[in-house]
Each structure stands twice: as structure tokens, then as C-alpha cells.
């Protein structure tokens, strides 16, 4: 392809994005668009799959049958979300095996929040309320992103996500109204999950290297800082309502901005966890790799069975 031809294709492509025409799998797209989308969608899929681990930790120890069926359904949803997203990502010409290999080798990332441990039952409440709450704020704008299969997957994900947040908030609310030990447990979970949750929106706008390009392609419709502020503004009153306090001494309502001012974020911690030094990074990846390797004989067996049936059908 000549340079001029490429330029024409690129111009037509940018025009489509500007006109809100969705890009579909077989359409021409710049290589950088494809790569960026593989990176983001796979990272998103991996986050859903790894995200099952901290919560799965509490399924067998849920305090009642009601809590247990809800948590089980939520974890199943995360598996489903991972699968919708892998399927969307594969339309960009990368195989499921390649995607899993990237996760297992650490060349693809997943959300750092899942590298924190779930120490008590209240952590299940805090995850649903805060982590899923932050995820929803990140995900809702993606229902209108430019890549068709990603946008459609996000519509399904968002529809299913709101029960996750409610079940988490309900757990926190109940604990906060319980005995003093229960309330303390809820407060402790909030203390530990608050900062990692607000870090989920990523580096500040000034530090974010992908923001400009991602805004142009509608992979992002609001900046990290805007989304973070939105999360804080909506979550602080919820904490007040159930009598828990957000662990930030600088948190203060700003009448002029009609928003909360908040204290400095410990970005060193964020980058430590991103780089693999969080409390559970190794454990999470080891668990995923073991699941993949221990499942190999099942996958092989199923293929052997399918091949045998094909032969029988043929004769």
C-alpha cells in the first residue's frame, strides 16, 4: 500500500470515528488502533477473570445462604464478563491462547486492585460497593466507545454490574448497623479498600500517557481525574449514610466547586503494585497458571472426544 493510499484510509477512518460510526471487526483500522484495543480489552478481560479470586475466597464462608447465592452469582458474572470481553478481543485477530499466555507471562496487565487480599467478610462488602462502584463509573462511558464488539460487550456488562454494587453496599450497611465488632470490621475494610479503589481510575491526567489518544478514539470519554472525582462525590455521602468514615483527613466539601476536595494519593504504592510488588500479585498469577495447566487434560480430552465422534459420524 502506498503512503498516499494509507493516508486516505486513515482520514476516512478518523472521519468515521468523529461521526460516531462504529468500527466493526472486518473494517480497515490503523495498526495502532488495533493494538491499543487489544491491550485495553484484554486487560479488562483479565481483570474480570483475576477479579474472581479475591471474592471466590469467601464463597464457602459466606455468613448465610442468601449471601452465598448472591456472591456465587456475582463471581459467575465476573467469569461471564471476562468471556464476553475475550470474545470481543478475539475479533481483532488475536487468539484466546495468545491472550492467556500474555496474562500468564505478565506481559498483559490486569487491574491492580485485585492484588490486595480479602481478609474478612467485610472485604466482600467493600469490594462490591467500592471496587464495582468504581468499575461501573469507568465502564458506563465505554458503552459508546468506537469499537463495536467492545461497546456491545460493555452494554451487557453494565446491565449486570449494578446488582454487584448493591449486594456489596447491603453487606456494609448490615455490618455497620450490627455489633460494635461488626461495625469495626466494616470500617476496617473501608480503610483498606478506599485508597486502592480511587487509584483504580489510573494516574492523574498530567501523568497519563494514553489519555489523549484514547479520548480521540472514544476509548475514553472522560479523563481519569474527572471519573475519580465523580466516584468520590457519589461515594462519600453513601459512607456518611451508613455511619462509616472515609479514611482521608483532608476530605472536605468544597462549596464553590460543588465537589469534595481530597488528600494526596500515594502513587508510589500504586506503581509498586502495578509493577508486581503488591501483597498478592504472585499468588494471583500462580493461581491462574495452575488453573490453566491443571485443566489441560480436560481440554485435550474434550478435543479427543470430539474428534472420535467426528470419525464415527463419517463411517
Amino acid at each position, binding site marked *: 500500500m502506498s503512503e498516499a493510499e494509507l493516508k486516505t484510509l486513515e482520514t476516512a477512518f478518523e472521519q468515521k470515528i468523529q461521526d460516531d460510526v462504529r468500527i466493526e471487526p472486518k*473494517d480497515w483500522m490503523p495498526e495502532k488502533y488495533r493494538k491499543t484495543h487489544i491491550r485495553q480489552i484484554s486487560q479488562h478481560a483479565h481483570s474480570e477473570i483475576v477479579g474472581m479470586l479475591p471474592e471466590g475466597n469467601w464463597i464457602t464462608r459466606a455468613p448465610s445462604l442468601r449471601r452465598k447465592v448472591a456472591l456465587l452469582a456475582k463471581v459467575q458474572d465476573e467469569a*461471564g464478563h471476562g468471556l464476553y470481553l475475550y470474545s470481543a478481543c*478475539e475479533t481483532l485477530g488475536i487468539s*484466546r*491462547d495468545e491472550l492467556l499466555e500474555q496474562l500468564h507471562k505478565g506481559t498483559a496487565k490486569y487491574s491492580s486492585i485485585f492484588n490486595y487480599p480479602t481478609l474478612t467478610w467485610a472485604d466482600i462488602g467493600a469490594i462490591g460497593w467500592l471496587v464495582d462502584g468504581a468499575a461501573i463509573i469507568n465502564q458506563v462511558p465505554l458503552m459508546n466507545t468506537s469499537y463495536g464488539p467492545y461497546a456491545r460487550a460493555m452494554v451487557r456488562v453494565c446491565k*449486570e454490574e449494578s446488582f454487584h454494587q448493591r449486594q456489596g453496599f447491603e453487606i456494609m450497611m448490615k455490618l455497620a448497623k450490627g455489633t460494635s465488632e461488626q461495625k469495626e470490621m466494616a470500617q476496617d475494610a473501608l480503610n483498606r479498600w478506599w485508597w486502592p479503589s480511587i487509584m483504580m481510575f489510573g494516574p492523574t491526567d498530567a501523568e497519563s500517557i494514553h489519555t489523549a489518544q484514547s479520548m480521540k478514539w472514544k476509548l475514553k470519554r472522560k479523563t481519569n481525574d474527572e471519573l475519580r472525582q465523580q466516584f468520590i462525590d457519589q461515594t462519600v455521602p453513601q459512607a456518611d449514610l451508613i455511619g462509616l468514615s472515609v479514611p482521608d483527613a483532608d476530605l472536605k466539601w468544597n462549596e464553590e466547586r460543588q465537589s469534595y476536595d481530597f488528600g494526596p494519593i500515594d502513587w508510589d504504592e500504586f506503581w509498586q503494585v502495578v509493577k508486581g510488588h503488591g501483597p498478592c500479585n504472585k499468588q494471583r498469577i500462580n493461581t491462574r497458571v495452575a488453573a490453566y495447566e491443571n485443566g489441560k487434560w480436560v*481440554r485435550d480430552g*474434550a*478435543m479427543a472426544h470430539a474428534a472420535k465422534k467426528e470419525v464415527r459420524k463419517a463411517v
Partner: protein
Amino acid sequence: MDNSWPIWEVFIRSKNGLEHRHCGSIHAADEKMALENARDVYTRRMEGVSIWVVESKYITASNPENNGELFEPAQDKVYRHPTFYNLPDEVKHM
């Protein structure tokens, strides 16, 4: 050896009277597992009353590069639409 499960496209009829609609894909070793996986992944909330699965390699798709010759000819055939025809005002329903 690459022994990964093939990809299947999934189509769901959300209720009787509506057509099956494409909703995504799954991996499965054979058609029985494809149906089971499609059920688990795409109908956890009563989204369907019927599922079709077909291995993706059996789908033939048009190429967007040919969209001009495929779809543009329809654009200048306005006479295929009722609004192309003039009727006197007295004719109310036609």
C-alpha cells in the same frame, strides 16, 4: 501442538416471535458443549428461549471493501419506496 477449542458464534432468540440475534462467541470442543457454554455465558438472566451455535469457520461474511458495489446500487432506486409516488390528497389510506 495447538489443541485449543474452536470458536462458535452464538445466536439467541430472546422470546418467541422474535428472531435469533447474534450476541457473541464462545469456545467449545463440540456442538453439545457449545450449546452448554452459550447457555452459561449468555443466558444467566433469562435472556433467551432458544440458542443457535455455529462454528465460526462456517460463516461466510461480505468484505467491507466491497460495500460500494454491494450496497450503493440500492441508493438510487428511490422508486422502491412508497414516498416516490404522488397521490392526490383525497386518497387517505394507501
